[in-house]
């Protein structure tokens, strides 16, 4: 079916229906335009267009400074993603195991890590672990809980992909004499990956978002550097706006890049 839903809904309307549709569309669009104008007006009325609030953005040092913060964010996110993908695989294998002794602990770990807020895990690493002798540095106190939390979700995403692979594939491979392990590694998992790349990338975006909690464990990342700029230039709205835009761009970029990766896999 090459026609989209919108074409079917709104194509070939009679005059009255067309008029109504146009009326509704224009009203909604006008409302949005008014909202946008109101926002810009408010910016102006609150004096947020004053040059002193924006002029430091023209300096290279400002962007270099923000860039350093962003690198901190990405460094933690990359490692956390690695942990999540690897540990998620381990948890998946445990989850799919026919042995109850292996499966039940795997399920328990997955359900625990999924059912608890990441921020809570971060606080545990920061406030509780040291009292039992585990002293991590700030980087790991952020990366580890984020990685663990995401690993559980990734395990479930892997599992959804594995379950989506048609049973016929497994049966055929077994009929050809491959062992269960071989079947998984060479037949089932590669196909599962193809189904779940978008979901995995969504997790990657979540990992980047979770790194904003870095200041809770005194890890320096983008939000922290933003606060320094605010203290130096007393410019709240522009700095936070710039940081928000940066985060959105980074995460959007990750989503877009993954779509390009997914294409050759079909």
């Amino acid at each position, binding site marked *: 079916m090459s026609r989209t839903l919108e074409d079917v809904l709104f194509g070939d309307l009679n005059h009255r229906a067309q008029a109504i549709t146009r009326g509704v569309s224009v009203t909604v669009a006008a409302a949005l335009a008014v909202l946008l104008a109101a926002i810009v007006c*408010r910016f102006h009325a609150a004096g947020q267009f004053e040059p002193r609030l924006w002029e430091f953005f023209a300096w290279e040092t400002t962007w270099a400074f923000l860039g350093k913060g962003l690198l901190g964010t990405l460094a933690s996110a990359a490692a956390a993603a690695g942990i999540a993908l690897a540990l998620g695989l381990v948890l998946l294998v445990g989850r799919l195991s026919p042995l109850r002794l292996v499966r039940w602990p795997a399920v328990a770990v997955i359900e625990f890590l999924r059912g608890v807020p990441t921020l809570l895990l971060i606080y545990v690493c920061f406030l509780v672990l040291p009292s039992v002798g585990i002293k991590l540095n700030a980087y790991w106190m952020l990366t580890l809980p984020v990685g663990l939390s995401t690993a559980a979700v990734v395990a479930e995403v892997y599992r959804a992909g594995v379950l989506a692979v048609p049973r016929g594939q497994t049966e055929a491979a077994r009929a050809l004499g491959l062992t269960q392990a071989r079947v998984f590694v060479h037949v089932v998992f590669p196909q599962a990956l193809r189904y779940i790349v978008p979901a995995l990338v969504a997790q990657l975006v979540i990992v980047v978002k979770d790194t904003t909690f870095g200041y809770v464990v005194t890890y320096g990342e983008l939000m922290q550097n933003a606060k320094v700029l605010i203290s130096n230039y007393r410019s709240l709205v522009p700095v936070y706006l710039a940081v928000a835009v940066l985060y959105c761009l980074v995460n959007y970029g990750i989503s877009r890049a993954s779509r390009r990766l997914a294409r050759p896999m079909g």
Partner: protein
Amino acid sequence: MESVLRLLADHGPAFGQALLLTWKLTALSFVAGFALGIVVAVASLLPLRPLRFVLIGYVEVFRNIPSVALLIFIVFALPDLQVVIDYEPSVILTLSLVCSAFTADYLRTGINTVAGGQVDAARSLGMSPMVIISSIVLPQALRSVVQPMTSLLIALMLSTALASQVPLPGRELTALVAKIANDSAAGISAFALAAAMYLASGLLIAWAGATLDRKVRILR
């Protein structure tokens, strides 16, 4: 074990209030976010290109922005634009906006699963587009997204932990255990108790969602 009992003796009521606050924040944010998400999803069907562009932008922004960054913007930066929102409504606003973006996204997928033939048939019967959307497309779309929406609700409940980052008058679960861990040595039991409460709430929501899904799911 006795440390947990002692913890309950000292802070029992506080934990109860914290749990209630967590649920309250979750419920309010979900209702608002869900409603807003439906509006955005339906509006993005309208045949107006600029409108669709803006709505896609809205969804992309609130899907990709970290919730903490959004909350900090609302609490600390908006007042400079003379929009001062109290702390609890700020948390609810933040979570609602993020929830609405994900809702709109899931609903779009749900809308796409509605068989095109039904819409064709409805059009040939002379139904107007808005009636088709409200009586055919939307109900089926909603019924098909119960599972991702359940996951979203659980994620929303876990996200209420970020309320610990602003000076709320009350304390929700994460803020409470962070304070207990800072002030006393009962850290481990406090966190274990909070974790258990989050887990239990999540399991409850998951069970309710699964039941609902079984009842309204459209078998194709």
